């Protein structure tokens, strides 16, 4: 008679089962093992917490505050933090707490857009260059070098001048200069992997280069690329904020944190909260990504097994 | 043999503390080494490498070591200070490892490393040490020692690299040499030469040798006595000459499952692991050990 599989007594047991019964169980089991490893590192967990809070803030913004980030109350300009305005108000009487919350959406937008552009481009260019070698490698690497040579801020200025200021253009500008290191990283990993026996076995089975790249090489390059991206995220957020500060990124009245720091500059001495609080937000989020990235690196490349 | 043993190990326990629990590497290992060739043979996970490292107290920080006795001619190793250990390592007990690629410093020449090994233990001058190093290179049968002196590790072959290791480890004239898989990375013809060399050197200097290997053939043909290790415990201790009359089923199984040139078989007998082997050290093993002392 066919046997019904025993019901596991808990999720945990199902996930750490030594003999997974399905692809799904195997894959989730692996993620769970990584999660357990990450959990052991309190700093990494704090980083993760910060990122999660950022995410939740962005999603649940309307529930976290009933005010609007654009409402100006000129009678309540530059009020210090109070029960009514937790972070005080800015020079146009807008509630800073609300603006911080809604500003997280912009930060998150930057994070996602840059990742979505940089990761695929870097991976594809890097793995193709690393796998095929020869003139293809040379051409792709020289192209990479060209983009690597552009300093990000100058590039953003150029874009702003050409296309006009705005957060989207700023993101494109950042992405265009951010992808080269990932291509390099992916290429280095690919070159190590391409002589490995399992790749040779795949070739002997008749797997096409596309299949080898997609199914074998890219999944193995992902961990180091993701770690790098998470660590870079801090820098990317800072640049976006910096662009905002310079007036090249988000435009008023957008509640972008860098922009908030910039417009609060003139009030720094007497009404410190206007510039400092968004500055703190930038710092905390960057730091959080940094901690998370460090933790992920330890999980993916454990030094002590 | 009423001579006092060089090294006495009694009831050695070593465990590694990991994130997911303790791993017991050695569970009550006991043996003695005189000025003889003792072979420790075991498969991966048997704990054989841990023995060598425990004797020299070179285990990583997460290792817990305990023993009723672990002494080198009277010096209790587990209770010795780090200073005492430094005077023992290299000077009284030396160790050579498997792959010279990993045990030689890649940025120093071969000669410099041998000379350094000498100066660490004797405070000799640089020129004196260099002379000794050259002499040592000759002793390990390297032709053209002056030329080899100034070569870097990556410029020498595997076999020569091992000779350099031997030179480095024997120059302070230790009494006991621990060799952990010294020939595993070498070709079979080079292996024979290297073993001959080790044999000559330890005979001449009246040293003791602990040869750790997974290769039963090697240990049986080269050593005087053999200690068979499995799961961190001693399964059997016997004289190499009596190896074919091994009593313990694990030893017998290991011997039987070797493919031999001179004995064609259609199928190799497979080793059936019996969980009762682990637990209390088998009485056969203990008796054999007592017999061979």
């Amino acid at each position, binding site marked *: 008679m066919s046997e019904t599989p025993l019901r596991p007594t808990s999720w945990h047991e199902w996930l750490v089962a*030594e*003999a*997974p019964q*399905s*692809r799904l*169980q*195997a894959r989730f089991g*692996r993620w769970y093992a990584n999660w357990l490893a990450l959990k052991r590192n309190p700093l990494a967990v704090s980083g993760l917490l910060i990122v999660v809070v950022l995410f939740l803030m962005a999603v649940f913004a309307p529930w976290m505050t009933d005010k609007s980030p654009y409402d100006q109350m000129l009678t309540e300009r530059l009020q210090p933090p109070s029960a009514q305005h937790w972070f005080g108000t800015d020079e146009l009487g807008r509630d800073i707490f609300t603006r911080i919350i809604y500003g997280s959406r912009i930060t998150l937008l930057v994070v996602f857009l840059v990742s979505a552009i940089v990761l695929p481009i870097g991976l594809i260019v890097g793995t193709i260059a690393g796998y095929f070698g020869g003139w293809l490698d040379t051409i792709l690497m020289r192209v990479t070098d060209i983009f690597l040579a552009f300093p990000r801020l100058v590039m953003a200025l150029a874009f702003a001048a050409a296309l006009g200021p705005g957060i989207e253009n700023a993101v494109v500008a950042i992405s265009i200069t951010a992808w080269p290191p990932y291509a390099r990283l992916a290429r280095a990993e690919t070159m190590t992997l391409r002589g*490995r*026996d*399992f790749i*040779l*076995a*795949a*070739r*002997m*089975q*008749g*797997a*096409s280069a596309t*299949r080898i790249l997609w*199914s*074998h090489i890219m999944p*193995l390059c992902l961990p180091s690329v993701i770690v790098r991206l998470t660590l870079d995220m801090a820098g990317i957020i800072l640049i976006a904020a910096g662009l905002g500060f310079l007036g090249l990124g988000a435009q008023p009245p957008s509640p972008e944190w860098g922009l908030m720091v910039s417009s609060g500059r003139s009030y720094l001495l007497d009404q410190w909260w206007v510039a400092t609080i968004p500055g703190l937000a930038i710092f905390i989020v960057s730091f959080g990504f940094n901690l998370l990235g460090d933790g992920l690196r330890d999980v993916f490349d454990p030094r002590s097994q | 043999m009423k001579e006092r043993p060089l090294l006495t190990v009694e009831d050695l326990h070593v465990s590694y503390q990991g994130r997911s629990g303790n791993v017991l590497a050695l569970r009550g290992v006991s043996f003695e080494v005189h000025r003889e060739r003792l072979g420790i043979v075991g*498969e*991966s996970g048997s704990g054989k490498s841990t023995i060598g490292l425990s004797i020299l107290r070179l285990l990583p920080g997460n290792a817990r070591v305990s023993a009723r006795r672990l002494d080198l001619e009277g010096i209790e190793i587990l209770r010795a200070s780090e200073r005492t250990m430094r005077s023992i390592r290299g000077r009284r007990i030396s160790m050579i490892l498997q792959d010279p690629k990993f045990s030689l410093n890649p940025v120093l020449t071969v000669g410099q490393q041998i000379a350094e090994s000498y100066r660490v233990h004797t405070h000799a001058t640089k020129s004196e040490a260099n002379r000794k190093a050259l002499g040592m290179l000759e002793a390990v049968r390297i032709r053209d020692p002056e030329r080899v002196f100034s070569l870097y590790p990556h410029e020498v072959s*595997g076999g020569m690299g091992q000779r350099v290791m031997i030179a480095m480890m024997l120059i302070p004239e230790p009494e006991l040499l621990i060799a952990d898989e010294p020939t595993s990375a070498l*070709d*079979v*013809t*080079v*292996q*024979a030469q290297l073993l001959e060399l080790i044999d000559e050197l330890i005979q001449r200097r009246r040293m003791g040798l602990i040869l750790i290997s997974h*290769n*039963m*053939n*090697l240990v*049986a*043909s080269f050593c005087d006595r053999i200690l068979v290790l499995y799961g961190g415990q001693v399964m059997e201790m016997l004289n*190499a*000459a*009596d*190896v*074919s009359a091994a009593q313990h089923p694990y030893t017998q*199984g290991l*011997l039987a*499952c*070797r*493919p*031999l*040139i*001179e*004995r*064609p*078989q*259609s*199928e*190799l007998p*497979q*080793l059936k692991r019996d969980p009762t082997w682990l637990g209390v050290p088998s009485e056969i093993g203990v008796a054999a050990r007592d017999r061979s002392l």
Partner: protein
Amino acid sequence: MIEVSEATVVYGSGRGRLEAVRNTSFKVDKGEVFGLVGESGCGKSTLLRAIAGLAPLTEGRITVAGQAIGSYRENSDRKLVQMVFQDPYGSLNPAHTVDKVLSEPAIVQKLRSVEQRVDRSLREVGLGPEHRYRYPHQLSGGQRQRVAIARALITEPTVLLLDEPTSALDLSVQAEILNLLKRVGRRRNLTMIMVSHDLAVISHMCMRIAVMQEGEIVEVLGVDKLRNRQATHSYTHVLLNASLQMEERKNGSGS
């Protein structure tokens, strides 16, 4: 079945020129188990890879079942020659489950009933459904090698190339794997070429043996001749003696 004539593999040029394999020729009949033995650097692995189509032939010709390597017309020709590699830790993709490792060749070669094939091949190499969805790091060295063998067999090849398949394994595990290879080879009437530095392993598995030194085949002889010390070339004797020296005390006071 396999014919190698004057195969030469040269890497690099000028001062960096390395003649890994020089002018080697031999034939292997269908169903035969042929051994390539020699010390490190003798070119045996390179020669095997040339037969596998993984190393480029500089000169000479290798044909399998009449078809020259390197001139495969269709992808389906590739499934006939498969290989088992030395390092069980490096021959499986650490990010793939056993299931994926085994189903991929079947999918690539567009074979039918992939599920059943995977199931069957697992059982053939002595593994079970409990191993199917594990990752390589959850398997022992011997188990990984079994998976590697299963992977090689799933496309139903006629030729199996073995590159030191047991060198990295414990003695007891080696015995199991060698027995498995013999069983599988007999059952499927596979033509096998095995490379090893271990003369004992080679003489256990192979019927005819080619001895290689510095890129050349110095002698080809039957295993019986080797056992009876009737080799003709001096290097074969050197190898044999060095290997036998280790076996000396197997029967006590020498035999």
